């Protein structure tokens, strides 16, 4: 019983924390949108190259 209460207490506190931080994170990611788009393309190219190299070896 104590265990169950403990688990639900953790959820009751931490779920709202997740929502509040999530909204803040969403705003942050919108502001960094250009950076993320550019890096995403670079990373995709890098992984593609690595996979081709791995196939060859």
């Amino acid at each position, binding site marked *: 019983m104590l*265990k169950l209460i*403990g*688990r*639900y207490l*953790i*959820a009751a506190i*931490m*779920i709202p*924390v*997740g*929502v509040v*931080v*999530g*909204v*803040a*994170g*969403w705003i*942050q*990611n*919108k502001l*960094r*949108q250009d950076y*993320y*788009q550019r*890096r*995403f393309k670079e*990373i995709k190219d890098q*992984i593609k190259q*690595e*996979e081709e190299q*791995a196939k060859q070896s």
Partner: protein
Amino acid sequence: MTTQNASFPLGKKASILYSGGTDSALAAYLVGQKAEEITLLTFDPGFIFFIENSKKHVDLLRHHLGADRVKQEIIPIKPFIDRILFGERMHDFKKYGFNLTALVCLGCRLSMHTMAIIYNLEHGIPVIADGSIQKQSTVPEQLDSFVRRNRRTLWWKYGIRHFSPIYEEDNSDLEMDKIRLSLKPNLKKQFILFDTQATCPFGVPADVYARIFYGELSGPAREVDTFEYSEQKRPLMEAIINEHFADKTPGLDELIDQLKTVASPLPAKWEDIDHA
């Protein structure tokens, strides 16, 4: 180059990254059908509650696979967590900002991987599996791109073949019921507070963050951060492994060679491996 229908490698041992939940228990069951001995690796990062819950499915696995074929190890990894997850916290917060809420789980997972590599090398275990599933790729550590790249650039670097035997699985609950491995139906629907695994206070907001805010709503942020975070932590992980084996005989290179020798004939897909 892969070999179809290869037999399980010498030693016939495998380890499983095991939380005790339905996914890792189902993965353990599938691996246990092909390996002669499985070791369930459960890690204690030092900040989770009710880790003893992870033992609940172990008895059922022993019943199905044989008591002497299933071993569970609960291993503390707090020193690794302190270095990998918390060691660069100011830098991490500046770089990733609020996204660190979800990346905490990736840092924890990388600490587990570091310990698992050490364990497998020390015990001569050439195969490791986990219960990653595509359906849960909302969380960074189960992203397809991360799982695949990690397999190539981390596990295999240390001579270990990594498999996710249920990656395509849509409903591990149903599968567990079918093979009578489930303690009760719909375990997965318990969402964050599971009966058969530990409760992590960081895991709760991380899951909310990853599921709702860190996916399509944020564009490619999750993919980029996951790549950069794991690349950033790689040297730390390698340093920990090197330090661990620094004064040991046989040395790290020798252990890696031994594992690579037995693991290299294995096919890329778990389904293509023969039963033991």
